[in-house]
């Protein structure tokens, strides 16, 4: 279980003569991702949702507040303790092409997590890679291809496979389907759901699309300019939004005729 408690992050832009402006990216945000659950963080660009993802991954540290993982405070750990934590929380990025090293074959890309884990014998790597490709509904024959030879949906699946090879507890899904065709979006979301059920994963889903969040998330946090506007389970949020901003978002959702 990952808990973010009263997280504040301010970005300062220094001017040429000292001083300068600061932007409050996150203002005392508290959320928790329960085991096997999906928390959606919804907001427009600039709302701070990606900053929250980066803090959950401990790619950056918050200015104040605490990050707890399994009850342990990991807000300011570094070195080996930080690397140990990171293994358990893996990212899936929006830009599936940028997330894969273009010079490496799929097999080499998928070998990287196994290498970095260091607890899987080399003799098993090939089998693990075949297994994970099967688990994400891709042909093991793709292992010799380069990322540019795959479709966006296939690349995103490879990104998910790489994360899964770390055997994480939590996936941070940063707009995982925003760059994909609508027909492919549903495939990838369904795959993520199946994986969650089979492997007991927890998800932090970052997005801007409420209709996807309604379908995909258990709990939803609505962010606007770094401020928490609403936080409830999906059903409650859609039935009874607390905040005007959430109502505006809901009103903007396309309705089925």
């Amino acid at each position, binding site marked *: 279980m990952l808990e973010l408690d009263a997280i504040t992050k301010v970005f300062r832009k220094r001017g040429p003569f000292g001083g300068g402006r600061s932007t409050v990216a996150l203002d005392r945000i508290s959320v928790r991702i329960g085991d096997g659950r999906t928390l959606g963080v919804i907001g427009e660009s600039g709302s701070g949702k990606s900053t929250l993802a980066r803090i959950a*991954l401990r*790619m950056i540290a918050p200015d104040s507040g605490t990050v707890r993982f399994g009850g342990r405070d990991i807000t300011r750990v570094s070195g080996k303790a930080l*690397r*140990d934590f*990171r*293994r358990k*929380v*893996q*990212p899936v*990025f929006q*830009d599936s092409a*940028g*997330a*894969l*090293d*273009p*010079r490496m074959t799929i097999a080499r890309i998928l070998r*990287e*997590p196994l290498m*970095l*884990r260091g607890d899987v014998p080399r003799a098993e790597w090939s089998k693990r890679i075949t297994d994970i490709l099967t688990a994400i509904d891709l042909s093991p024959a793709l292992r010799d291809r380069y990322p540019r030879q795959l479709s966006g949906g296939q690349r995103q699946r490879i*990104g998910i496979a*790489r*994360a899964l090879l*770390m055997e994480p507890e939590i996936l941070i899904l940063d707009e995982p389907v925003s760059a994909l065709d609508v027909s492919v979006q549903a495939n990838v979301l369904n795959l993520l759901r199946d994986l969650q059920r089979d492997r007991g994963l927890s998800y932090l889903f970052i997005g801007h699309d409420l209709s996807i969040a309604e379908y995909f998330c258990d709990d939803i946090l609505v962010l606007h300019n770094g401020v928490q506007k609403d936080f409830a389970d999906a059903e409650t949020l859609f039935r009874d939004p607390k905040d005007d901003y959430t109502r505006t978002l809901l009103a903007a959702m396309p309705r089925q005729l």
Partner: protein
Amino acid sequence: MSIIRSVPVFLPLALLTVLAGAVVVGPLVWPIDPYTMDFAAILAPPGPGHWMGTDSVGRDVLARFLAGGRLSLSVGVIVMLGGLVPGAIIGVIAARAGGIVDMVLMRAMDSIAAFPPILLAMAVAIGLGGGLWTAVIGVIISTLPFFARLMRSEVLRIMSHRFVDAAESMGATPAFILLWHVSPHAASTMLVQCAAVFGYAIITLAGLGFVGLGAEVPTAEWGVMITEGMKYALTGQWWLTVFPGLGILVAVSAANLLADGLSATMGGRHA
């Protein structure tokens, strides 16, 4: 390596290989010593016994051409590696450390780059007492900024990719990221720079030899040979200057064409 099969890479590479092969194997099949004077054959024009003729003290020009070529290509490689290794290390340190370290290192590189390379190499050669090896050190120093700046920007460019974020999330150490992700990408860019510096080193050292600050008379070196032959350029003994001149032309053009060919061929494959 499919890249070698592309024409703009293959042709100059083949040219350099032939030249290198000739200067290495040449002395075995052309057993005249480049320093033995033959006063019976002074300033002999190219002919059966001396394919490139002889110089003013009867030394065989072909033998000197081959020895000079071996020297030129060797110093080309030495300058290339001598600049690449410390330059790349400086670039990596600057990019990784950032802040004040980055600033100090890069301003130091700027100060080196502020001098015209050949003047800097001359100054170093004179300061260290002259001779081929002091000139080599001077030329190496003048190439450092090219390698360091390029390596720094490559490291920064590659480290900004999402796949590096992914690697960090998997617990990769900075050393792992440099070896596994950065170096394969940086290698192609640095290779282009190496080819260019190889050509630059040959022509600069020949130039320094020509003005008397590099290799010294009577060393068989292309620049020195041209200086020695200059006196006879107007009296018709063209073979003293034309052959070493052609050697420089071919080696430097091939190196520059190779650099262009590599960068054009690999350009589309960058991340």
